[in-house]
């Protein structure tokens, strides 16, 4: 922005095109691996395995057809939808009220409680996976979708609490008080007055919870066998032996990734805030 002061018009011109070129480079490199997967999912088997790689090919949906004719792929997608949606819903149900308490009350020890809730987001999955596995095994709850729903709450609740709390702080306190004066209970004031006004935060946190739950692998790998296997586990289970069905693997990968990419685009403005737990706005 300041280089314009001394540089000649000619140099400035060159600079302008260089920036354009760099931008194109960024876009191409950022999209390339993803597009390469999508391309592989549309290639015939011979084209996927071709060397040197084939850049122009006649696309086919065979791989999708084959992947979707496999019972385990369909079932895993259904499982993933159920588990991610349910865990997100429960996290909202549980977390929003705590967000309200943290936004509206002040007390000694609030900071410690807040720290404890948020620190669950930092938890290494391997720390919880082991005790959860042993407990689920003892209770006969291995390969049960609800076990995953529960364990995903450990990272979903902190997301909801943090984002919704931030949003509620922007809702004037007078509104809850006015509702109480009009005869509402605190719970009614929260659900009918505050929560609707904090809806943008609720939606953003819901989408982030869905993305994180959908993408999770380690817990799903350890806590499921076949009946409640999620989509990422199913996709990785293809990867054994020689003669891998690459086309089907990439078709499954594409189907797994597409919904989360759409969601991420919807919240792209909040993605950074969500990933840094609000440290960066």
């Amino acid at each position, binding site marked *: 922005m300041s280089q314009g002061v001394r540089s000649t018009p000619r140099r400035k011109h060159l600079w302008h095109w260089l920036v354009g070129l760099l931008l194109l480079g960024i876009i191409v490199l950022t999209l390339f691996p993803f597009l390469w997967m999508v391309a592989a999912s549309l290639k015939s088997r011979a084209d996927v395995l071709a060397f040197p790689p084939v850049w122009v090919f006649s696309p086919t949906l065979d791989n999708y057809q084959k992947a979707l004719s496999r019972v385990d792929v369909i079932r895993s997608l259904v499982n993933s939808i159920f588990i991610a949606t349910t865990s997100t819903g429960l996290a909202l149900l549980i977390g929003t009220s705590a967000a309200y308490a943290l936004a509206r009350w002040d007390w000694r020890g609030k900071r410690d409680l807040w720290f404890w809730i*948020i620190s669950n987001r930092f938890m290494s999955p391997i720390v919880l996976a082991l005790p959860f596995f042993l407990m689920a095994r003892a209770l006969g709850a291995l390969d049960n979708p609800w076990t995953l729903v529960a364990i995903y709450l450990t990272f979903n609740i902190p997301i909801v609490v943090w984002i919704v709390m931030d949003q509620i702080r922007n809702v004037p306190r007078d509104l809850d008080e006015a509702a109480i004066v009009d005869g509402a209970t605190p719970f009614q004031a929260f659900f009918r007055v505050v929560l609707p006004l904090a809806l943008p935060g609720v939606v953003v946190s819901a989408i982030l919870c869905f993305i994180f739950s959908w993408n999770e692998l380690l817990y799903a790998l350890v806590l499921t066998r076949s009946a409640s296997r999620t989509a990422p586990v199913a996709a990785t289970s293809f990867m054994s032996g020689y003669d891998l069905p690459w086309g089907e693997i990439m078709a499954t990968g594409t189907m797994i990734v597409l919904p989360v990419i759409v969601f991420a685009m919807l919240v792209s403005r909040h993605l950074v805030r969500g*990933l840094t737990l609000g440290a960066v706005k």
Partner: protein
Amino acid sequence: MWSTRTRNWFLAPTVLTLLVIGIFPLLFALNISLRQYQITNPGLGFGWNNFANYVTVLSDSYFWGSLGRTFFFLALTLPVQFILGLLIALILHRQEWPFLRAVARVALVIPLATTPAVVGLIGRLMFDSDFGLANWIVTLFGAGKISFLGDPNLALFSLAVMDTWQWTPFFALVLLASLTAVPQDAVEAATLETTRRWDLFRYVEWPYLLPGLTAVLILRTADTMKLFDLIFVMTRGGPGTATELISVYTQRIGFRVFDQGVAAAMAILSLIVTIILARWYIRIFYREAE
């Protein structure tokens, strides 16, 4: 209305849930970590064993090896991701080519959202020893095909490439957000003093970049400590133990070697690291929550 009792009702669901699914399993892991505990070998019993698991872990050269590889991986990926991310942020912060900039901003979201396990699948595809794209590039330079994922050094490097593809956008978007937060009058005042882009960067923009950068560095460190999906799909820690970072090793001991006592001890040790990182992060960024 603002009674403590009301407040507790609002807090109860979250606190109870996190006690059951967060604290209780941790206490359970702590308990296991202090016992002889192999579920596939119940004949050995499940008695207390005087910190033997911790001794085993701390005297295990594979444990230290995996920890060392984790830090090596960090040293490999963090500087590259930071520099690339910073360059991308600086380019995106310029005024030219608004359409391309908008496209780039949207594109950057895609790697971040891509399921890490699927990033691993893409890595397997691109670094395949027979038909992978990486090998095509190698042959363009006249060299013969390389088994990227079969070579101990190149396997870790291949993982670093995929990790960099996925996470450089995180650096870029955070630093871009910080650049956008630099007040315009500070920039204008500085341009009166100097015409050098470097001075503007060093003395005006850099202080604004620091908090975001610190946040990303801590989070990426914590993420690498738990990095599992990408490695599990691309190499399973191999060849040998060449790409076995700490959480892959813990997973192997707990779920493939099946010594839960030792795995729990490792998990507790990584928990301590996690807590330190989390405290550090929260102390820096949430002063306002006090």
